[in-house]
């Protein structure tokens, strides 16, 4: 059946010509058709390979500082120059990328796992328990993440793992809200009611029906979580609360380099800065593309 209004608003006609993929993977095809989203994906893959495989091809010493080799401009032997303690900047960019991406993915994973569990249970169970669980989310949301992180990072001097946990723990609130909204809608669907009547146990119902059918929303949010985590870790590093050297991440490299703005050492700021912006843009493009592919309302809260 052709929806003329849809046609008039510029969407393609359903028509007789298109072969329909099975509903489950329709989103993948829609995503693949979105050039910006695919470009974002490519960028992410390239940067991941750059960070993790790069050092295998391009060996530099990222542990020992070298006096007398500081702040060399890009040139032979150092394509991006050296930083203020003598590390090769290109190699540092790779190592920094590893940490940045590890923490971002890790924090996003923590946020999504905790948030989805919390939200699905709250939405499915409903009633007073839902009310309480969501008020807790509201309370945690009321405290700016950076402030909370400021406190946690001061109390628990973080290493990579702690950073992942701590950042994830401030980020799980949004997926919780989103999944709870989905759960509220889904729990009155007939297949859920059928499962309940058949005696399927609640955890199974939650996972197999509620979560499985919210996978689109979850995936979209997970992508944005990664993007946000990168920015949050950068801000933390800027405030001096990141990981101690010789470990580094792009945010730390950027803020370190910003100390030398007036000396004109552009290779200290722009490579990590551009890396951050490009990666965050890429993840946001992927997230937007996924959202369009799944047909999710942008105003859904």
């Amino acid at each position, binding site marked *: 059946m052709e929806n003329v209004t849809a046609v008039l608003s510029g969407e393609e006609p359903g028509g007789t010509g298109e072969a329909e993929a099975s509903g489950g993977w329709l989103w993948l095809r829609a995503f693949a058709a979105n050039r910006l989203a695919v470009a974002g994906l490519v960028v992410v893959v390239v940067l991941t390979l750059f960070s993790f495989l790069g050092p295998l091809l391009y060996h530099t010493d990222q542990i020992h500082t070298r006096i007398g080799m500081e702040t060399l401009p890009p040139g032979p032997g150092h394509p991006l120059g050296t930083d203020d303690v003598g590390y090769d900047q290109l190699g540092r960019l790779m190592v920094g990328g590893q940490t940045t991406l590890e923490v971002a993915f890790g924090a996003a994973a923590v946020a999504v796992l905790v948030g989805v569990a919390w939200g699905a249970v709250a939405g499915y169970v409903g009633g007073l328990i839902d009310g309480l669980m969501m008020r807790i989310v509201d309370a945690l949301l009321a405290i700016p993440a950076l402030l909370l992180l400021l406190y946690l990072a001061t109390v628990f001097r973080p290493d990579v793992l702690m950073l992942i946990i701590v950042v994830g723990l401030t980020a799980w609130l949004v997926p919780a809200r989103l999944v709870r909204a989905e759960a509220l809608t889904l729990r009155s669907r007939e297949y859920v009611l059928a499962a309940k009547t058949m005696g399927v146990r609640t955890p199974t119902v939650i996972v197999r029906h509620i979560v499985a059918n919210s996978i689109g929303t979850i995936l979209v949010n997970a992508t944005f979580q990664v993007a946000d985590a990168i920015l949050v870790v950068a801000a933390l590093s*800027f405030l001096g609360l990141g990981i101690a050297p010789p470990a580094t991440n792009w945010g730390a490299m950027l803020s370190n380099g910003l100390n030398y703005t007036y000396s004109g050492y552009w290779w200290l700021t722009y490579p990590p800065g551009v890396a951050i912006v490009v990666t965050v843009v890429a993840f946001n493009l992927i997230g937007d593309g996924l959202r369009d592919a799944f047909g999710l309302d942008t105003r859904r*809260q």
Partner: protein
Amino acid sequence: MIRFLVRRCAQALLVLLLVTIIVFGLSRLLPGGPARAILGVHATPTNIAAFNRENGLNGPLPAQYWHWLSGVLTGNLGFSYVLNQPVSSLLAQRLPKTAFLAGISVVLAVLIAVPVGLYQAVRRGRADDYAVTTVTFVLYSTPAFWVALLLIDILSVRLHVFPAEAPQGSFSTIFSDPSAMVLPVLTITLVTIAAFSRYIRSSVLDELAQDYVRMARSKGTSQPGILLRHVLRNALSPVVTLLGLSLPFILSGTLITEYVFNYPGVGLLAFNAATSQDYPVLLGVVLVVGVATVAGSLLADIAYALLDPRVQLASDAGAGR
């Protein structure tokens, strides 16, 4: 309408209570207990015992919580041994400054972002729409501190238009040298616009696609008339909610901005407290900011209800939550 207000306020109170519990919980996370953390490494057991006694840190947790909460409700937010002042007076000095900075920036951001969003939606798909989207996208993906420092670099150092440091001291200093406020406000405004403009644009686009817009067109209403009389009001209500929800994000950005520009607000206070391990102050800031955000969200919800008549009816009928 009354029922809705009452319910919302009750919810907000519960959330406030939970915020206090969270802050209390945070204070108990300190390794070695609050006493050791606050008094420092060299505190003797006698000092610690005295401190515990004074601050009601003996006894079961609920009692401790109640002791602390009753202190808070009477205005006692603890004492900073680092700065040698009660936390409450520090907050009283700094909070208005942050409110001022954030307030101006948000108002400015909304005043700019809404017309820009309208413009984008109307010019959807054309070059200027894409241009604006690209700019805000990139801005949104840039760390706020870099934005701040780039602004300083361009507008302060190279072009010498604005000073790089925010005004210190009281409000009179601010008003006598407004140009020093420009860069900090600009930073937060830009970051906020970048976060909002996508939502405003898509909200307006959603409204433009609605049938009632087509209906209005069929009556001969002009495009500007449609935008002003129909679209704007309906597109704004989700934005109001969004504002309420974004307060924490905006305050995070304010923290960074205060740090970069050395602005004597609550964010910089928190940062200094963190580096000097002045936990009472840090926790005091967390508490007050949390409370302020809950209040702000409540106001935003009330504004939303005023804007959208459907909400009032639904609540009066007692439907759902």
